[in-house]
């Protein structure tokens, strides 16, 4: 423990600077994050370049990225594994009607609905946070079901039959498609940024601490519940946004499917494929999932689903850290760094 001896008598901060420095950004990560921002910017011009069909596909991808990133923030960083996020997806979609019926433009309505879902998440958390681990996961599922049944029993929302967003079917398909695309792109960028900022903020590390040991976290001053709630609400807003976008692009929701537990399945799938608890993982997972779905998803059918299931099993067993997680571990790589590295000068005796 000789490294300790020379400074034990000095004041804590001063020599520290001398003996070590902290690193977050690396050249790699700088370029990477630069490239990402550039890419997002470039994507904004897609509707002028690509055909609506291409942008339509991209929109689907964005929605997937959103839900994956949100679920990852929730499970991967705050340790809140939930199989009930579809509850908020559904609220987001149906919330749109609440505003549209009051004459709000559908696109604005999507945003408002997302915020509304966030508001609903606050009281929800009071209930849900009484559970932990697997219990919380399933509890959320039940809560989602509860939301679904409330919607199903609300005639103005079309009850069990669901509702069509007729307000948009008037506009020219190509234009509408482009608008939805831009909205999706914008929401995705904002939400990803939000997650990134959150993780790099003073709260980021605390969240991981909470995930590892809530009691320990509290005893070093972390406001455990409010930190969890913050992420919970963010994830709700994100999920809801995804729901709203789904409605805007498919123009119809039906409770059983927008509140369907398969959403959770997809989220878990994407995050685990990409790498849980990494910022990059869910994005990659979403892309993979999208490609899989796109390549043999159309002629869909049983075999595609069987393949998906098998892949899920295989990944968990043989690549538990997911694609990105595995790579990152090998090369100690972090494109968008949310962690910390300490560099100590090498003193050989």
């Amino acid at each position, binding site marked *: 423990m000789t490294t300790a001896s020379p400074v034990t008598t000095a004041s804590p901060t001063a020599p520290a600077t001398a003996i070590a420095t902290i690193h977050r950004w690396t050249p790699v990560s700088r370029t990477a994050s630069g490239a990402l921002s550039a890419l997002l910017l470039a994507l904004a011009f897609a509707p002028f370049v690509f055909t609506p069909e291409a942008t339509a596909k991209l929109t689907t991808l964005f929605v997937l990225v959103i839900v994956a990133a949100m679920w990852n923030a929730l499970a991967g960083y705050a340790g809140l594994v939930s199989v009930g996020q579809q509850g908020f997806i559904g609220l987001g979609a149906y919330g749109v009607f609440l505003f549209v019926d009051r004459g709000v433009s559908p696109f604005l309505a999507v945003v408002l609905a997302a915020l509304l879902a966030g508001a609903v998440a606050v009281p929800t958390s009071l209930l849900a946070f009484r559970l932990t681990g697997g219990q919380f996961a399933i509890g959320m599922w039940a809560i989602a079901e509860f939301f679904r049944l409330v919607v199903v029993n609300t005639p103005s929302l079309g009850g069990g039959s669901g509702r069509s967003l007729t307000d948009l079917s008037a506009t020219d398909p190509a234009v509408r498609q482009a608008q939805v695309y831009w909205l999706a792109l914008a929401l995705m960028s904002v939400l990803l940024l939000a997650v990134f900022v959150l993780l790099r903020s003073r709260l980021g590390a605390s969240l991981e601490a909470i995930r590892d040991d809530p009691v320990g976290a509290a005893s070093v001053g972390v406001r455990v519940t409010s930190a969890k709630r913050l992420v919970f609400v963010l994830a709700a807003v994100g999920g809801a946004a995804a729901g709203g976008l789904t409605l805007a692009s498919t123009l119809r929701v039906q409770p059983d499917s927008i509140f369907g537990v398969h959403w959770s*399945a997809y989220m878990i799938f994407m995050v685990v494929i990409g790498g849980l608890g990494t910022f990059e993982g869910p994005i990659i997972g979403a892309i993979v999932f999208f490609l899989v779905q796109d390549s043999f998803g159309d002629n869909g059918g049983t075999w595609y689903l069987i393949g998906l299931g098998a892949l899920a099993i295989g990944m968990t067993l043989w690549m538990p850290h997911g694609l990105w997680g595995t790579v990152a571990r090998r090369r100690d790589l972090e494109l968008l760094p949310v962690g910390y590295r300490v560099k100590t000068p090498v003193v050989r005796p």
Partner: protein
Amino acid sequence: MNWINAIVQGVMLGGLYALFACGLSLMFGVMRTVNLSHGDLAVLGAFLVAVLAAAVGISPFFAVLLVLPVMGLVGVALQRGILSKALRTGEMSSMLATFGLAIVLQNVLLEIFSADSRSLDVGSLSTSGLQLGSSVSIPYLGLLTVAVAVALLGGLQLLLARTGIGRAIRATAADADTAELVGIDSRRVYAWAAAIAVATASLAGAFFAMRSSFSPSMGPTQLLFAFEVVVIGGLGSLWGTLVGGMVLGVAQTVGAQVDPRFSIIAGHVVFLAVLAFRPQGLLGMRRSRT
């Protein structure tokens, strides 16, 4: 009078739910494994029973007895092949892996048996019952289900609480490595637990198939109920699971008595109420230190 009948039917339904939740309670409550394929394993069991009964031309009840050990082996395979590995990387992996399994099972069954819903024909047993007055009637099949549920859950509860094997299971669930260090073959213990869990699942599936009908897509619907039952009853207590089943069943039937559309929602409301006022479940115990 109808209210009494509603409660009676609720208890009968509760028996079935408890049976469904039994294996889940063992895995989720005791072994801390979230098995999302539980419902579909139950369906698989039901199909095996149906096929066997049809092929050999025996009563479903005999078929069940033959299928149970088979499903037990399926459970062992599940544990050895998937859960044991997944568990090492945490609750979430087991959730994803079993979810994947759920999808595979559903669609393989769909591929083989088509989406038609079918049921196990046990003749008059499924349609006859004890008439008490004009409106109360106790179905024989329901009685049988409840009896089996009580016997099974009660038996397992005693096994866990009183016997050495039970202690070994709980110890392994708590900390498999350390269990090994005190001479417990954790792999065997896990295998056994999984075998029991899956076998009981198929038993529940069979009873469900006799009571109403089943199809490849039925699994997930019943899974949530089963989970609610476990949580309502309290993690790790199989008595609790039995009680939880009854509570959920009665909640649904009484809810339906108020207005048919409240049936399922009433179940969820009761579940949420339990969360709110007794998160550790009706018979669960709160932990302070660990």
